[in-house]
């Protein structure tokens, strides 16, 4: 199967610091892929590169056949990428459901005049947006909080809301940056089942985490990053027994 996301010899330097160093990386369609590595390995940077938020210093990123190099960050979303953030980035000035409604932005079209003058297209689309948003909220169990201020949710629910918001855009790929961090055991279990369900619906998932346990349970394939380079790639079992991985983890983090 062709790769949905392909990073070719991607490098990113901040001043003198090379955070990601000529990494080749790909995600296949329908996969649940994980990207792991100790703290400071460059995972989040790589994710930011893949989603176009941070421009690459060199190399190229191809999503569904087209390069996003030099394109503005929102372009990746129009190609079917959606993501969540390590430290949740909700729109705190909006309600829960409005957050998800923004998520529908990429597949809706009504412009400012339509909204201002309440043209027929606005009504039609707004209905779709509300339906979709409720569906996504229901899926993550936030239906009851739809009208609440997003900032008032407890942390665990904020994470879920962020996922719902990302899914509302009907993405081909969902990228999650440390989704399990800060979640209780019960919440983590719920998250696992939600992710499985998402994959079963045909959405590709890319997980970034440093928590091996959580990742190993659910992913099909794992890439391990350390100090900006790929050090291992394979099934969870292969990776877990990889000497370099063990060294990297033991060397930096007594986990």
């Amino acid at each position: 199967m062709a790769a949905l996301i392909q990073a070719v010899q991607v490098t990113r330097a901040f001043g003198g610091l090379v955070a990601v160093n000529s990494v080749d990386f790909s995600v296949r369609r329908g996969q649940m892929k994980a990207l792991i590595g100790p703290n400071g390995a460059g995972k989040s940077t790589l994710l930011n590169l893949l989603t176009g938020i941070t421009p690459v210093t060199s190399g190229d990123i191809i999503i569904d056949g087209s390069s996003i190099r030099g394109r503005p960050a929102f372009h990746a979303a129009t190609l079917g990428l959606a993501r969540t953030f390590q430290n949740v980035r909700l729109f705190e000035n909006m309600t829960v459901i409005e957050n998800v409604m923004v998520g529908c932005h990429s597949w809706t079209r009504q412009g400012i005049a339509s909204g201002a003058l309440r043209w027929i297209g606005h009504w039609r689309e707004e209905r779709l947006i509300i339906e979709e948003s409720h569906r996504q909220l229901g899926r993550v169990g936030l239906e009851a909080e739809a009208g609440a201020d997003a900032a008032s949710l407890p942390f665990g629910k904020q994470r879920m809301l962020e996922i719902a918001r990302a899914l509302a855009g009907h993405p081909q790929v969902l990228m999650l940056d440390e989704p399990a961090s800060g979640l209780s055991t019960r919440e983590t279990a719920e998250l696992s089942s939600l992710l499985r369900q998402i994959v079963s619906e045909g959405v590709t998932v890319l997980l970034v985490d440093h928590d091996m346990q959580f990742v190993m349970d659910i992913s099909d394939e794992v890439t391990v990053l350390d100090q900006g380079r790929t050090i291992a790639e394979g099934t969870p079992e292969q990776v877990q027994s990889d000497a370099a991985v063990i060294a990297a983890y033991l060397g930096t983090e007594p986990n």
Partner: protein
Amino acid sequence: MSVAASPDSRNVSRKAVRRLDAATAAPFVIFLIVYALVPRFAADKELTMLIYIGINTMLAISLNLLMGYAGQVSLGHAAFFGLGAYTSAILTVRPIPAEVIPGLGTGLGVAAGCAVFTSLTRASGARLASAAAAMVALAWGSQAVHLHPAAVLLISAAGMAAFAAAARSGALMGGASGLTAAVVTLLCQHLLAGVLQRGGASPWSGMVAGVGFSGLVAYLLGGQVLRLKGHYLAMATLGFGVIVEIVFRQWTAVTGGSSDGIFGIPVMRAEWLGGIGRMTGVEVSPRVEYYYLVWAFVFVCLMLGVNIVRSRVGRAFRAVHGSEVAAESLGVDTSRYKVQVFVLSAGIASVAGSLYAHQAGVGYIHPSEFGFGVSAQLVVMVVVGGMASIWGALLGATTLQLIKTWLLGLEKTQHTLFGLTLTGLEPIVFGAVLIGVMIVMPQGLVRGVSDAAAAALRGTRRGRPGGSG
């Protein structure tokens, strides 16, 4: 916001959308009733005050869209207000001197060309500046040798195409922008000369021209400036505002400068709106008619504002405020929406400016009315009313006007305190009120008062079981 909870029922969600809109419609109905009836109870004095409140409300709405919703601070908003007022006034009473027209037309043409160029190629900074320089050179060159208009168009388009190709920006896009520049230049020169010949345009066309001009300026400026954040953006907008005011003061040939300003600006008429007054049995003076005109615009702005913030694009604006990165990750073209809200905001401010210039019984503008102080006051109106609140803009503008009127009265009665005549108190009280409101109700009056009311209500409820209520 109460949204029904059955996700799969189309019926319910349709109702939900409708119900939301019905809920927001209620205040408008009240507004319309009050709007129609006010002149029955208000004299000229109150109407004048209301006209100013109306104009300020429009300004506060426009700034609130930009600042409260999209999170882009502007400390130079009075500039757009002024551009609207001056464009309107100049076209109606102070037609531009003939010798300035070629240059002005060229300027407008090049600005339009730049707008097309930057929107097609996303060029900015130095690249845009060099494109502008190329267009200016082409325009001057072709005008200096008095070519046939068709030749001018051709040369301009071809020249820019060549330039763009050389600068690797795409020959086609360069050609399009060159063509735009030439077309707009010729058109503006022709129109301005026509206006000069006829001795002035009508106020309505002045208003339209003002919106067009302010929008163009906002588009060009916004595309560049809105990349900045926080204090830098505030500073850049402040700088823009100051520069525009200085131009109003100093470009005497066109703006009349700061000695006499522009006076004798004709009134903007709307007889049919006066009809509302006649229906309620009021004698319709020019001022009453103007009141109806201004508040009709306020109504439209309130409605557009309320509709926009609750639409797809409005949510995108607010998302930009919440988190630009997150918004981008959801496919929101943040730079585009920032420019869009900036242009929209400038357009509304420009309309307010035209209404200000064409005011019945006054018809006077002066550069001092569009300076930094006014910009700061607009920010205050927005914040006092409440950020991200369209109706709050109305409240903010009203509150400030009431304070001003109260202070005006203070001078008249010559209060004394401890033997001192209290005169010139306005700035002191005004400053103190600002600080007070910000400390006590940093969320603005709407939130502040409703929070306080809610707290009081809770207090009495809590007291009731004890029997003390």
